[in-house]
């Protein structure tokens, strides 16, 4: 084989191996780390496995925030103005978390129909609305 063709062959093999490896990595990593987003209505209608990590969101209902006095437990209700979902969380809430503001949480459903959040997403602008929630509100109007 002449040297030029040989070096093209090397390059081709390297590209092939690299891309195959990457594709395999991407597919396997993606299938494990993809979190679907559900509105309170969708959660009510769909039958969601309690072991699956999902994201939920909506507006924080006014007067629904209950903070414990001696622990970091907090619960609040999110609404899409059709259905509601009670969220339980243990931890410090982001600064921009407030009543009547949009919120997105990540976690899973529990047997009693509430949601156990492991993460409450913080946005650093008070006017900002997570796109998921904005879309939700548009469609329910």
């Amino acid at each position, binding site marked *: 084989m002449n*040297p*030029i063709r*040989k*070096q093209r062959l*090397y*390059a081709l093999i*390297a*590209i092939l191996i*690299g*891309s195959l*490896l*990457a594709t395999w*990595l*991407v597919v*396997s*990593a*993606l299938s*494990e*780390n*993809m*979190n*679907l*987003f559900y509105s309170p209505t969708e959660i009510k209608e769909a039958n969601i496995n309690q072991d699956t990590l999902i*994201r939920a969101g909506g507006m924080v209902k006014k007067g629904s925030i209950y*903070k*414990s*006095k*001696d*622990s*970091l437990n907090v619960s609040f209700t999110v609404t899409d103005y059709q259905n509601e979902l009670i969220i339980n969380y243990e*931890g*410090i*809430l982001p*600064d*921009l978390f407030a009543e009547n503001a949009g919120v*997105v949480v990540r976690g899973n459903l529990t047997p009693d129909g509430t949601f156990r959040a492991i993460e409450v*997403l*913080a*946005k*650093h*602008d*008070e*006017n*900002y*609305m*997570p*796109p*998921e929630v*904005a*879309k939700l509100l548009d469609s329910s109007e």
Partner: protein
Amino acid sequence: MIPEIGHIILISHLVLSFIGGTLPLVAVYTKSKYFYIPVKKLSVFLFMLILMSFMILVYSFLVDDFSVAYVSQNSNINLPTYYKFAATWGAHEGSLLLWILAMNAWLIGFIFFNNSKDEDYTSTVFSIACQVMFAFSLFTLFTSNPFERILPIPPLNGADLNPSLQDIAFTVHPPLLYFGYSGLLIPFAIAVAAMLFRKDIKEWAGNSRPWTLMSCSFLTMGIALGSWWAYYELGWGGWWFWDPVENAAFVPWLLSVALFHSLIASESRGVFAKWSILLSIFAFATSLLGTFLVRSGILTSVHAFALDPERGLFILGILAFFIIGSLLIYSIKDLENQPTHSYELSSKEFGFLLNNLLLVILAVSILFGTIFPLIYEAITDGKQISVGAPYFEIILFPFALALGLLQGVGLYLSWGSSSSFKFLPRLIIESISIFALVLIILFILFDNLYLTSFATIFLFSWILMGTLQISKKRNLNYWSFLRKRAAVTFAHLGMAILTLGVAVVSSYSLEKEIIMAPDDSIEFGNQTILFKNTEEIMGPNYFSKSATISFSDGSNSYDVLTEKRTYIPSGQLTTEAGIKTELFQDLYISMGDNLEANIWSFKVQIKPFIRWIWLGALLVAIGSLLAGIKRVRRV
């Protein structure tokens, strides 16, 4: 009146950049003196225009001209003067102006320091850059005019700059990032001109290299500052979130690193010509794509720019025009690509090929994960998903490992023929000794060893020794080391230090959420944390509740202040973390909620070696800047 002058100047910039984007090309292709315009003078004139326009916007901020809509949305009478100045690029419209300014500055740099005797080629580069600037000016004027007025009754006071942006690091971070992004315009314009003129690969690669290196340096600094700012300002101690906007900067960074490595091979050996051209195009494309993703608001991101689909479509249009245009030229022009040298499997060329392959596949995988929610939404008819940080970590790890292993031996490889691998046993032994030494130090410092960090710590030792040995081997004296090897040594050492920082901080970090009343203390890691007292503080445009916390390791104690600030105009709440920085660790505490009376929740963290991440990034930036400047002066 003054904002209108700024507006008119911006319009003249638009018109002139259109002329600059067309006439020189007409002159080159018709060979007619009639269309000739002096590009040097025009580039300076364009720069003066955009600079004046920008200064007028700065002025409007400084004098609190709230009749300008952009000023009224992003400033306030009570905002400290320095932040009024920095608020100019605090949101979308001003950022764009700064972006055009940065592109123009790079263009001047290229026009004045480029030594090519080929005037047609130089003015073609100029022309293509002008076309991009024209598109940006058009975009600014039509969708995001910073000089728009609120008339006849302007508001008496502005809405204020987003409080989390009222910070020194923030004021420097966007300009650096914009200079990084916009610098990629030059390699792009050079690549297109090189195709049109079928330039010799060695020549155009040499033209392109310094600008690619410098853009990469600015991108590195911009990204690192952003990471540092997020670490202390967002209040929760993370340094990288895999947020779409971070990925939007990371992807062009990866491609610019790939590009300048590929250009080394192109300039020295005349290989990878087509590849370097495609990389130049795509590095620029991803910098535009990042803007599109961030500005259109179609992805959930911590960066809250106004959500405006119209803007998104406009940027997509610009992107499509330049990418399709340049790829069309690429497919039409027959780029003769017979390598002048052949190379073996163990040659430097092949090393660069692997380096590029890894960087590009990594970039594509990260980009894919970033835009996958959009793809998914499109194919499932509106179902929304997010791709979590673990996806990106799973992808990054094997590629970073391979890149690091390659980096350790890369500097030893020689051009063309088989390299000698006699250095290998020594490198392995030395890396293992350094690896063991680091483990001992970590054990002494933190009483613990984590298996998960071993691979990355070894990588640090490997890159470190691979870089140091080769520099020592050259046996250069101090001065010629600085001249010849300093840039690459700094950059590669920077990567080693960054790797160590990431390795340690991701395994050894401790965090805990606690509840304390004044005078309570709690044991955490090797520290005793004492909540001393709370205090009310009045700032220039905020009031805050603050807590004084003392960290004590038994022999020394140190007080930090953490605050819960309420900014007055907007009522927005921010958390200011209290951080004690040491060489080997940061002690980090941030105030949470007031549970009752004087009882507060806190999040406390120990972040070992976190500073090393930014220190490493700084070295990388210095190294690539040195390499870039050196090459500008040489040509």
